[in-house]
């Protein structure tokens, strides 16, 4: 250890270190131009000159390469040092007057125009580039010439093969003398290009050392061995000099790890279809033809354009954008993907709507499609809204995209529904590419010995939707079939449940208990508040002036730390916050970001990790309540953000740490509804070892499945259903209650108590979780003369005829199916999802029984999503005639002389045609079994269509926002058997996440009485909807007769607090002084 004096202070450094290194550690700033941490110092620029007193005299040395020695005295800030640096800057500026870096330095040193002759160079001969090139193990460039002739050059001033165009020289050049263009044009013969970022779909470059995307798990950087210079030359390793914890090891090799597992879940996902092979779309050649995945990135705030809607050729805002549907889907001519990719219609509409939102002008969005498939929950509404917002929907498949010569625009020709040919120009065209299975996944499936479908998806059975053909291996997500997020999430939970069922005995045998971070006691401490302001990409920062709000927060009382984050919820930010809270010893935290309703738990987790009680926290909502709703008024929005931050700070200062109560979870489950999904949920729960009560209002199990003839795969539903019922009845962990209704619900997650009423008999049941599977029913149509003629049936009634093997079905000359009866209309604006497939399947069944029967399907859009599309193709090939109509131009049915005549306007012929039918099948809508009492019992919501509203449309499809209550089947939304079964299992899976914990923590924000003030009036006891307050027993030793509040039952609503006449109740976390603080802080600005 060497000790010396730096600016009069004693500092220490290691033998062999240079002054600069020690100064940096000691926090003394010395300017540098030619220094780089990873390179040997060269002392080229001399701007780091410092004053050195060696005991006898004073000299000037360069700090970057002067080794330290015992007893030396260094001064970095003297007048002489400054004068020297000023002269250097002046000379460099004279040499390179246009370099911004030097211009800024000159400004700093107060230099106007240099006294020396101005030259027109940009290179300051710092030698960073040549030293870096050497470090790369390459030496393609060096300093050539001597004296004034000296310059950076390649050997013989020729473009060289030696240069790998790695760009290291350009990355260190401080003046911009070496650029990527220069490397491409002057230095290298190999041509330089960016490493395409996979996350940004190649629209942006990335480094060889990179984190795939901000939310990646694990969130640690990786080195891309294919492009890292070290793996080419053995040189570089610059990254190692920057890593503070020596985490980088270039010698690591791939290793094979063997794991002993009881089951495997495959979730390899899909790859987006590559449209390059379609020459006629010019995707590979024209920058303004992009894929939908690229469009997603362009619309994203964290994307390559920062969320600004621009086209790629000239970065101008497009005025007209077109989407082409079914690119790489439903296409056997130009690719092999005959299936429908299920998700593209919806994402195209979403992109169009978001693009219109992003554009501050009237953007024209047109979607070219074949059938609009918005069969998901609330999707049809979104489609209707998009139409209302002016998105154009054009039913036409466009063959060719032509570049318009002399511009970056694109021209297309298409045929309208009326048969007219139209030529239209667009600024940008988005190809809605389909989903397909990666060839590597196909290879993996082959290795595992798993059967695939014709579309290369994992083969599964309708009644076992997540089981692969190999026992113990399960599948979820788009590998099981093209599907959207909610369905993938349902599958994922179902697969987890399937794996859990076979591994139920092994549960908790490998559990490791996480380290519990001890809570710091902050009681009595002066508040030290940290304020973190989130930019949320551009969602907040695009409107609110975030730095201003952040700095403003710094002026507020007790605020000790301020910062702003790009995405506060990103995992790396969370870790940084944890560190900051510890380092700065913060004891209160405010996050100004989005809504506490979704993100409070996340940040509270961060507090817990930092050893703080999670209630020492307040969020203020400057996104949902501010930037998003005042986007045209940035000044007011910024002012509002400041007010909200001030209110939050004043409240959080008064927050106290709150304890949480622990509660046992009753290990019994209740399933309401004995249809397919309810039975599946019960079976899953029982298979995982939980006692389950299955209640059914009817007199037998099976629900709607009893009336369905066969599955798409051709299995008879009756047989499979019988197997399932038999299993349920034979499992003694499942108690079946038929003809039974739930007539009361008390309690809360983990300890519910209900009355089951079956006729006159009443039974009490205690349970920990409940699954709602109340199902749905087929609409009884009120149109098309339904009920007036035995030849006019609903789809289920036709199924019943098939099941009875009605001989009359073979004698039909002409059968007509009418689709969307009661669905997709103003009073019921949702798609019933299953009817297209069902009708087509039944049409084929009729054809099978009598190939001479003329079968017509009158439809609006055929929605045979996924691999159901094959059925549609098969039906067309079998001669089923499809005739499309609009909602405004429905088929007309009349009965004349005992003949059923149907008139429909054919979309190809554009004229009305009449069909005489012997059989009419109405594809009637699926209605939920509306159950308002259940909704009230469990405090769960119903939507406008009377389906239950799940916790989260995408991420929580099988559970309610109410803790401990879960959802599956038709009560959630219309769905076919395989999806109902998957969701049944998913709801069980979600329920088991609670049951398996055995105990849960309740909230700390509960009410508390102060018995000394309580007047025992009883208002709180009678007013509480959750029965939390009660009187302390009259014979109690302390506070007899006063009110007390059970923290487990208390939901923290505060009703008792407001109604307490004596002021004896306080609500922790929302105490009077805390709310008053907010009020006072709010009005402070008036």
């Amino acid at each position, binding site marked *: 250890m060497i000790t010396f004096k730096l600016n009069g202070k004693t500092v220490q450094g290691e033998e062999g270190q240079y002054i600069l290194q020690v100064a940096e550690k000691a926090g003394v700033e010395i300017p540098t131009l030619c220094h780089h941490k990873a390179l040997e110092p060269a002392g080229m620029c001399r701007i780091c000159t410092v004053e050195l007193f060696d005991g006898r005299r004073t000299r000037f040395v360069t700090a970057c390469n002067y080794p330290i020695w015992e007893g030396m005295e260094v001064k970095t800030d003297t007048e002489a040092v400054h004068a020297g640096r000023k002269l250097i800057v002046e000379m460099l500026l004279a040499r390179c007057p246009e370099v911004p870096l030097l211009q800024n330095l000159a400004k700093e040193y107060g230099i106007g125009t240099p006294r020396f002759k101005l030259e027109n160079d940009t290179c300051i001969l710092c030698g960073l580039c040549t030293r870096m090139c050497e470090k790369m193990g390459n030496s393609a460039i060096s300093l050539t010439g001597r004296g004034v002739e000296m310059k950076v050059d390649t050997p013989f001033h020729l473009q060289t093969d030696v240069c790998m165009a790695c760009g290291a020289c350009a990355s260190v050049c401080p003046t911009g003398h070496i650029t990527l263009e220069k490397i491409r044009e002057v230095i290298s013969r190999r041509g330089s290009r960016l490493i395409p970022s996979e996350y940004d779909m190649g629209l942006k470059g990335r480094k060889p050392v990179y984190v795939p995307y901000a939310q990646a798990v694990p969130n640690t950087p990786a080195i891309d061995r294919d492009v890292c210079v070290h793996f080419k030359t053995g040189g570089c390793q610059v990254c190692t000099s920057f890593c503070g914890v020596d985490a980088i090891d270039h010698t690591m090799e791939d290793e094979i790890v063997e794991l002993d597992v009881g089951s495997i879940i495959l979730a390899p996902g899909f790859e987006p279809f590559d449209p390059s092979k379609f020459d006629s779309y010019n995707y590979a050649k024209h920058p303004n033809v992009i894929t939908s995945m690229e469009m997603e990135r362009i619309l994203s705030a964290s994307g390559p354009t920062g969320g600004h809607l621009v086209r790629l050729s000239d970065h101008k805002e497009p005025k007209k954008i077109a989407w082409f549907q079914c690119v790489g889907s439903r296409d056997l001519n130009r690719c092999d993907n005959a299936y429908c990719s299920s998700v593209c219609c919806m994402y195209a509409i979403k992109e169009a709507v978001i693009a219109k939102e992003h554009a501050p002008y009237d953007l024209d969005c047109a979607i070219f499609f074949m059938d609009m498939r918005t069969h998901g929950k609330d999707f049809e509404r979104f489609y209707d809204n998009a139409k209302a917002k002016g998105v154009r929907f054009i039913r036409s498949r466009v063959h060719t995209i032509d570049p318009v010569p002399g511009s970056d625009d694109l021209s297309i020709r298409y045929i309208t529904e009326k048969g007219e040919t139209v030529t239209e120009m667009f600024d940008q065209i988005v190809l809605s590419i389909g989903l397909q299975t990666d060839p590597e996944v196909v290879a993996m499936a082959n290795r595992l010995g798993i059967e695939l479908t014709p579309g290369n998806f994992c083969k599964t059975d309708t009644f076992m939707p997540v089981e692969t053909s190999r026992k113990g291996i399960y599948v979820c997500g788009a590998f099981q079939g093209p599907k959207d997020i909610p369905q993938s999430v349902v599958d994922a939970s179902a697969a987890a449940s399937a794996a859990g069922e076979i591994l139920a005995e092994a549960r908790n045998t490998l559990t490791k208990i996480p380290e519990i971070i001890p809570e710091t006691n902050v009681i009595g401490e002066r508040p030290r508040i940290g304020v973190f302001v989130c930019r949320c990409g551009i969602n907040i920062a695009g409107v609110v002036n975030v730095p201003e709000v952040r700095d403003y927060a710094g002026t507020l009382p007790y605020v000790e730390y301020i910062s702003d984050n790009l995405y506060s919820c990103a995992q790396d930010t969370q870790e940084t916050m944890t560190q900051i809270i510890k380092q700065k010893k913060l004891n209160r935290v405010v996050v100004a970001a989005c809504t506490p309703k979704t993100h409070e738990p996340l940040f509270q987790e961060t507090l817990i990790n930092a050893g703080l009680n999670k209630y020492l926290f307040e969020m203020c909502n400057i996104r949902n309540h501010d930037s998003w*709703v005042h986007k045209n008024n940035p000044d007011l929005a910024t002012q509002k953000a400041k007010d909200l931050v001030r209110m939050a700070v004043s409240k959080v200062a008064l927050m106290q740490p709150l304890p949480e109560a622990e509660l046992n979870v009753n290990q019994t489950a209740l399933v309401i509804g004995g249809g397919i999904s309810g039975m599946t949920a019960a079976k899953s729960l029982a298979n995982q070892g939980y006692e389950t009560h299955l209640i059914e209002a009817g007199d037998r199990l099976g629900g709607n499945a009893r009336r369905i003839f066969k599955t798409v795969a051709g299995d008879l539903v009756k047989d499979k259903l019988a197997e399932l019922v038999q299993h349920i009845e034979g499992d003694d962990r499942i108690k079946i209650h038929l003809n039974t209704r739930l007539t009361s619900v008390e309690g809360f997650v983990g300890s519910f108590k209900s009355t089951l009423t079956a006729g006159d008999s009443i039974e009490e049941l205690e349970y920990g979780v409940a699954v709602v599977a109340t199902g749905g029913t087929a609409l009884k149509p009120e149109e098309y003369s339904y009920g007036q003629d035995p030849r006019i049936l609903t789809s289920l009634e036709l199924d019943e005829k098939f099941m009875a093997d009605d001989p009359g079905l073979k004698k039909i000359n002409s059968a007509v199916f009418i689709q969307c009866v009661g669905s997709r209309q103003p009073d019921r604006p949702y798609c019933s999802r299953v009817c297209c497939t069902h009708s087509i399947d039944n049409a084929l069944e009729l054809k099978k029984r009598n190939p001479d029967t003329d079968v017509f399907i009158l439809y609006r859009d055929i929605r045979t999503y996924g691999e159901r599309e094959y059925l549609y193709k098969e039906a067309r090939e079998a001669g089923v005639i499809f005739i499309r109509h609009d909602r405004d131009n429905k088929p007309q049915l009349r009965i004349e002389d005992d003949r059923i005549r149907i008139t429909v306007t054919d979309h190809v012929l554009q004229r009305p045609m009449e069909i005489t039918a012997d059989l009419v099948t109405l594809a009637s809508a699926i209605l939920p079994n509306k159950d308002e009492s259940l909704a009230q019992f469990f405090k769960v919501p119903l*939507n406008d269509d009377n389906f239950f*509203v799940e916790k989260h449309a995408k991420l929580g499809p099988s559970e309610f926002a109410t803790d401990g209550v879960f959802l599956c089947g038709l009560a959630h939304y219309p769905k076919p058997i395989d999806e109902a079964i998957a969701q049944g299992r998913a709801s069980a899976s979600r329920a088991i996440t609670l049951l398996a914990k055995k105990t849960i923590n309740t909230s700390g924000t509960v009410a508390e009485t102060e018995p000394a003030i309580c007047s025992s009036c009883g208002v709180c006891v009678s007013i509480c909807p959750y029965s939390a307050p009660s009187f302390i027993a009259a014979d109690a030793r302390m506070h007899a007769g006063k009110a007390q509040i059970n923290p487990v039952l208390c939901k923290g609503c505060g009703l008792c607090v407001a109604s307490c006449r004596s002021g004896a109740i306080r609500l922790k976390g929302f105490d009077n002084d805390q709310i008053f603080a907010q009020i006072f802080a709010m009005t402070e600005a008036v």
Partner: protein
Amino acid sequence: MELMGIEPDRLHFSWISSAESTKFVKVVKEVTEKVKAIGPNNHFIKDTAKVA
């Protein structure tokens, strides 16, 4: 309220479900308009504020 010299329009109550964002916006607009119509609140501000 009126007894204390506060215009009744300064205190508003409403009931909006979490799904009724349109209603929320409507009510915000109405309340703001009504309050704008009656002007600033200066009857009941505490003395210190008046001095300031």
